């Protein structure tokens, strides 16, 4: 078990909120740094940004009370929601080089041994997502309340990176399958996700 040091500081955190009126919501922004290091025996104690070192964080939430659009006299209410979040890309440790290993008799030679240099020098692309929603709420009758929510998570269908993996393309030669190209592949977790929810309680 190794012990290290960690520094986290955020010199700027802003939030503006509107609480009244038909349009409500808030905008938040955070500027922050995180770094770790001074591990004995790791990179000569060099400092590096850990995974949660994301420089900029922005969130915008808006709610629009559209009750005027509902049918007069039916006592329904309609609310529109929108959210947008942005986070700077987080650091990752990717290899910088590779070599082939002969290895000892009986062991399989390795043609592709990655060489990892200084930690977390690569940054993933930024994460950004927009969600929208509509909430249609009926008036409470006796003790029964219900509403219908149509929401779309990741409405712009942005393919935010979840992780990056390596694929080695091979070609068939007289010596068998030989690797000839290395490709990086980005895998995302959630595409556009619409949903329809009916909530009720009594």
């Amino acid at each position: 078990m190794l012990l290290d040091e960690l520094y986290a500081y955020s010199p700027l955190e802003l939030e503006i909120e509107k609480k009244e009126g038909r349009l409500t919501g808030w905008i938040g922004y955070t500027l922050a740094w995180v770094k770790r290091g001074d591990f004995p025996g790791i990179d000569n104690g060099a400092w590096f940004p850990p995974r949660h070192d994301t420089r900029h964080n922005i969130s915008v939430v808006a709610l629009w009370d559209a009750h005027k659009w509902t049918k007069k006299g039916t006592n329904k209410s309609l609310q529109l929601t929108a959210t947008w979040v942005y986070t700077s890309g987080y650091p990752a440790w990717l290899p910088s080089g590779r070599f082939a290993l002969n290895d000892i008799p009986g062991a399989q030679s390795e043609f592709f041994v990655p060489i990892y240099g200084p930690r977390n020098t690569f940054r993933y692309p930024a994460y950004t997502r927009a969600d929208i929603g509509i909430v249609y709420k009926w008036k409470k009758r006796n003790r029964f309340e219900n509403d219908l929510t149509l929401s779309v998570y990741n409405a712009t269908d942005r393919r935010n990176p979840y992780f990056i993996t390596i694929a080695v393309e091979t070609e068939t030669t007289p010596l068998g399958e030989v690797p000839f190209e290395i490709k990086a592949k980005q895998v995302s977790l959630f595409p556009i996700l619409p949903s329809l929810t009916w909530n009720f309680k009594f």
Partner: protein
Amino acid sequence: MKNILSFFALAFLLSCNLSKDIEIDLPEYDRQPVVECYLEPGKPFRLLMTRSYAFFDTLGLSSNFLQNTLLDSALVTISYNGQTDTLKNQFVPVLNPVKFFNYVGDNLVPATPGTEFVLNIRLAEGGEITATTTMLPKVAIDSIVVEFSAELDTLARMLTYITDDQNQENFYRRLLNYSSLDSFPDQDFLVTDRFSQTALIAFGTGYELAEGDTVFNTIYHVTRDYYDFAESVQLAVSGNLNPFAQPSPIKSNVRGSANPIGIFTPLVYDRDTTIVHK
């Protein structure tokens, strides 16, 4: 209603294909010399020195692959017992198993435990590499026991026993090959004797051997440097293909101004070839 169904159908289509090729901008990489020198008692001094590549450099067996990969024209010397041997720059493929070397000496590696070896390399383009190591004693395989299963008498397991020196910390690499030493090993792992509270250590297999199978059973007694190097290589390889695994830098025992990677180590082992029979 029709519009809602169309919306969901379109959303479903857009949701496919969550993986895509991307271009990654990695920091510039200076190729490094890679040294592998395994001192096998009774065999000539042999060394393989190659160059590493930037991670996304094109692969493949082009016509100048060897020229681009092998690092030749260096001055390679190994000193021991008051003498210094100079290895000749000569490409030597070895068969059974297939391995390659590009520096070979005339003398044979002495087997005396405790002999210190010093490696010195001066590269043609400048830069030096040095390393030291000490010959280890051989840890012999005491016995091998083949047991057929009582329930499935067509399948057997193999138990391999060694005696460990409990007065010091020892490191081993266990290899089990079927049919030939060039085959993909069925067992290949590194182990220390810290897990064992007795001097007698047993390595086993499952009931997977059939009568007539040829088994190459090898126990390498390795140095701490080699254990760290081999373990770091295994972790780096597994971390490369698994995005959820922790990557590992290579732990080398070769040093110098050339910024090398590699290992300089004795290769002491005992090997037994067993043909399984009832």
